[in-house]
């Protein structure tokens, strides 16, 4: 007799144990594909790291099946997918959390929300490394654990949200990680660590303490003043580039250039192709970006394809879709 006989043939109400998880799969109420026998725990299933990883300190998504390890630097985030594609019947929900091995290393996972009845697809989870040392994770490492719950009856609605059927991260999700543009938190952390030494010395020496307090106070005031004016000049703006200003080339579509103040000037970046340049003014930065797009398009086109590494190959593919001869 199967483990699902109560509850009118559906998975029983409550958390499913290992035999009930297996039975639910056999009877088509639950899909875990590919299923890993070693991942089946007494009342959970351990999910493994999928092939695609996006980390805020790398310029593009990483194929973990080709790279041995993904490094999450201190105070950096990574978006990971599960290897397994899940399929829940309308009479089941899932609750996912980090495995204890992840938590013990000081890694926070963006888990918690319920996996709704009727959901199918991969799960996508953001990991945050809050420690001061890099965290390494590999393709097929077990990193999440999921409970499956049987419901007392079929809900009136099943999950039909935007994540239904999704197996790869969206461009929006990838850009959200990549556009963090590096370790802002890490920089703050490093600065804080640098302050610890002088502060301790000041406490010991005593006489230095009042001076450091004054310094800290004036720094705080400066930061407060800067924060108050920040929105006016510090916020990046998106400028749509509609033309290249070239006699020979035209854009197939508009592209977003992100213009950011930096060091008294401005940078202009087309993030999709990871192409950036600078200018003394916003207008000059945009103008330089247009020139650089054409220069790179011509220069990369002139290279033999077998001489291009992974990133220039990717950049050329994007530019070929974007730029056409007049």
């Amino acid at each position: 007799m199967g483990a699902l006989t109560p509850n009118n043939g559906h998975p029983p109400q409550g958390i499913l144990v290992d035999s009930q998880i297996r039975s639910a799969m056999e009877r088509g109420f639950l899909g875990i594909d590919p299923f890993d026998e070693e991942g089946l725990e007494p009342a959970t299933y351990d999910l493994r790291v999928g092939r695609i990883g996006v980390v805020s300190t790398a310029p593009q998504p990483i194929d973990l099946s080709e790279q041995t390890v993904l490094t999450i630097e201190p105070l950096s985030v990574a978006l990971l997918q599960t290897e397994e594609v899940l399929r829940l019947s309308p009479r089941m929900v899932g609750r996912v959390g980090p495995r204890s091995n992840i938590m013990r290393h000081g890694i926070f996972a963006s888990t918690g929300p319920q996996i709704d009845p009727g959901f199918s697809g991969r799960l996508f989870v953001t990991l945050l490394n809050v420690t001061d040392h890099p965290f390494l994770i590999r393709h097929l490492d077990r990193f999440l654990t999921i409970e499956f719950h049987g419901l007392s009856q079929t809900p009136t609605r099943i999950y039909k949200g935007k994540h239904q059927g999704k197996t790869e991260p969206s461009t929006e999700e990838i850009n959200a990680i990549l556009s963090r543009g590096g370790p802002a938190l890490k920089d703050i952390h490093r600065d804080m660590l640098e302050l610890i030494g002088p502060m301790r010395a000041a406490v010991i020496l005593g006489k230095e303490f009042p001076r450091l307090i004054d310094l800290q106070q004036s720094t705080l005031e400066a930061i407060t003043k800067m924060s108050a004016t920040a929105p006016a000049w510090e916020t990046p703006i998106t400028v749509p580039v509609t033309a290249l200003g070239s006699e020979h080339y035209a854009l197939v579509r508009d592209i977003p250039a992100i213009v950011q103040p930096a060091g008294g000037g401005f940078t202009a970046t087309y993030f999709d192709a990871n192409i950036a340049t600078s200018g003394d003014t916003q207008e000059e930065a945009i103008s330089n970006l247009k020139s650089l797009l054409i220069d790179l398009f011509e220069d990369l086109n002139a290279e033999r394809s077998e001489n291009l590494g992974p990133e220039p190959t990717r950049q050329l593919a994007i530019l070929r879709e974007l730029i056409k001869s007049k």
Partner: protein
Amino acid sequence: MLTKDHAVFIAKKLNADIRTKSAHDLAVIMHNGKRIAQFGIRRGSNRNQGHNHIPNGVHMNAHDTLLLAQCTISAEQWVEMMKQKGLIEESAKTTISP
């Protein structure tokens, strides 16, 4: 802040091939005959001209890019970092070639 001096120094350090283009000089970085990265160096005589876009070109954050310009990070270490990021294929050797 990263300046034109930093950009030129990094280009030399990574043995970049400098190609004159319309608004920039293009610093093209090759590794074992393969092009792995590039960045633009702006025209102009001001050595302190802002080049804060260089981190994108060399695939590092601004802090590490400054360390690369200041010799704290060597060219060989940069190559290793690019390998870890998948921007140089694993089979490639570890010397930078012009």
